Structure formats: C-alpha cells, structure tokens
C-alpha cells in the first residue's frame, strides 16, 4: 500500500515537472530566433 502510494506521488511529481518544463521550454523557444541574429548598424561607422 505504502509502495503504491509512493509510486503514485512519484509519477505525479514527474508528470507535473515534466509538463512544466516542456511548456516552459516551448514558450522560451520562440524567442530563440531573435537572439543574436539581427544586427544593428555600428553607430560610429
């Protein structure tokens, strides 16, 4: 019984953490393209 409960909590924890991480990762991915690809003119050129 104890083991089953422990397994249940562990799976729930992994599920929630995994979900949270993959959502965060996907949302942050959309910013990647704007990082360091565009280039402003050199102001003293």
């Amino acid at each position, binding site marked *: 019984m104890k083991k089953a409960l422990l397994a249940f909590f562990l799976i729930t924890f*992994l599920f929630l*953490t*995994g979900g*949270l*991480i993959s959502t*965060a*990762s996907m949302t*942050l*991915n959309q*910013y*990647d*393209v*704007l*990082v*360091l*690809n*565009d*280039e*402003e*003119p050199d*102001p*003293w*050129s």
Partner: protein
Amino acid sequence: MGIDLGQAIKINRLKSNMTQSELASGIISVSYLSKIENGTAEPPKEVIELLGEKLQINLLDSEELITAQTIIRWFHLLLQSNVDESIRLYNRIKNNLSSVIDKKMLSLIEIHKLYYNVLISDMEEAEKLIFSLQKSSKRFTETEMYYYFKFVGNYHYEKLEYKRALDNYQQAEKYTKSDLFHQSEEIHHLYYLISSAASKSRQPHLSLIYSIKALEYYQSNYDLKKCAECHILMGISYQRVKDSQNAKKSYNYAINIADKLGNIELLKLCYQNIGSLSSEAKEHTDAIIFYLKSYELRKEDIIPRRIVPVSSLMKEYYKLGDIINAKLWLELGLDLIKALPPTKSVHIYEFKVFQYLINGTTGTNTSFDIFMLHEVLPFLERKQLFYEKAFYLKHLALYYRDNRKYKLSSYYFEEAYQTLEAMSDI
C-alpha cells in the same frame, strides 16, 4: 584668442601684395583659396605648406592658428565619426593647446576627448577621462552636461553595456535645449543613438520612436546612408513587435538605398536582418540564402563582424536538424573566436554553448553547467544583457533536464522567465 589659418593667409597675402589668383596659382583653385580665407574650408597639411612657402611664412608651426573655429570643426568631425580627419586635427589642437585662451573651450575639448578616445579604441584612456571628468562634473554648464552624458553613453555602448549607454543618452536628452554646436544635427544624432541603444537593450517601441524622429531629419537633409541605417533599426524594431510586413518594408527601403549608394556595409546588415526575419517566419531556405549573402560580403572583415552570419548559419542548420552543416559552421566559428577576447562579442559564448549542444562537449575539462554559471551568466549580468541571459538560462535548464536534474531544471526555467518578465517592466 589667436587669429585663424584663413585670416593668417589673407593678412600675409595682402602684405605681400598678392591677389588671390596669384597665390592660388599652381596650388589650388581661387574659389578654394577664398573658402580657406573665409574659414569655411579646412585645407590639408600639404596645401598649407605650399601656401606658406609662397608667402614665405611657416603656417603650420604658428601657435596662433588654433581658434574656436578650428575646435568647433574638430567637434564636427567627431560628430560625424570621421576618424582620420579628427585624429589629424586633434594632433594640431593638442600641440597648440596653450594658444587656446577660452576656458570654456578648454573644458569642452576635455569632454570631447572622451569620445575621441572611444573612437580610436583607447578605452583605457577613456575610462581615466571619465574618472577625472566625474570629479568636475558638478561645475559643468548645461552644454557641458549634454556632451558629458552623450560621450559617457558612447563609452558604455562600445563596451557592450547598452542599458547603461541608453541611460546616459536619456540624461543627455534633458540638456538638448542648451547651446549646442551644430544644434539640429547634434540633437538628431542623439536620437539615432538612443534608438540604437534601445534596440540593443530590446526596447523596440522606444527604438522605433527615436529612429522615426532621426529618419525625418536625415531625409530632409538627404543623408541617405543615415536614412538607410534608420530603416534598418526600424526593421529590427518592427520584427520584434511581430510586425513582419513593416519590417520587410523597412529592410527593402534600406536595400534600395544601399544599392543606389553601392554601400556594401549597409548591404551586409540588410542581408543579415532579412535572414533573421525569414528565420522567424520559418522560411529556412531563404534565411540560409540571406545569411550566406551576409557571410560572403564579410570575408575580409574583422572577426567580430564575420562571426555574426557564421553563428546564424550554425543555428539555422541546427534548427533544421542538419547537424553536418551545423557542425561545419560551428567549427568555423570556433576557429574564428580563438584569437578574440570574450569581452569583444556575445557570439563567443554562443559558439561554446552550441559546441556542447552539437558535439556534447564544452571542449574543455569544465562541465557545461559550471561554464555557464561561472563564465557566461556573470558576463551577461555585468553587461546587463538580460535578453541574452534569458536565452542562456533556458539552455542551462534544458541541460539539467537532459541530465534528469529536474529541480535545478525548473529553477533555471523560472529564472529565465523572471529575467524576461523583468525586461518587459523596463
């Protein structure tokens, strides 16, 4: 105050009973001599020497030749970032500084020296000057305050500290109503700098407002190169607020001007930014074509400029899952950054991060997370490059996730979010 070069030539010509055409004959045109005498043209050293020989005086060594006009001309050369000419004139001013009686001018020369050192990349000297100017800044007039803040801003910009640069430019803006040399040109140049620093600090709305203001001025003065640069800044801002249609329009305006002027520097920037726009629209083939164009034009450039398209190509291929090509550009990037100190470009860290992502190694004994925590993130924090910081925090979080360290992973994802959130409050 001493007499200026034009006056000295005129007085000595009249003393020698010479007409303008007699003196100019065989050296320069009469109209050019007239301009020199009126102080509207600054002749090169060789011409001064030849005129001096004919008049039998040494015009170059005369200590009386530095006047307010000469100094204001130097200020103008600095405003236009004309490196060679400003070095030449500065050496003349420096050698004859004792002839400058006007105390106000001496103080302004000292303040302008700050930007002069930034322009000639003597950052150590610039730092010393900031330190000494800071002490006397309490006694500065409003005009002096304007130039002081603007040049401190330039110093920070050159050190990749864009947020600090922007803060100083905005301080300078408070003094634009004071007496400035070349007032209108000066103020709009400041607007252009505010737009550049705002763009670098990821504040697209602010950047857009100021680039539009600057563009209006440059359009009315037919300064096409500056117009194109404003269009590029506007394109970047539009892209960041997800207005890709206007972004495209702005880049096309810039390309048209670059083509008309035959200006390669502008074309490099246009291709690079259109590549970025295509990448965002998931038009990967177009993105690669434009990045390649940008790369082809930069083969003879200095390394910090060459690595920009190299990094973009590496990332574009990585995104496409084309690891062979991604590796190819990564190797080139790693090779290029070997001789470059990390303070010179944020791209240096990018290659090291992708070295881990592509090859699974950091290339040193240090683990990926230690490298990020000890080198990359503190560097970005120091430079206040928060957008880039969020990007690297995300990659650190992904690293921990892949290594099943979920607690650390979620911690750094949250840090990345908070960093982006704090940015939207700026």
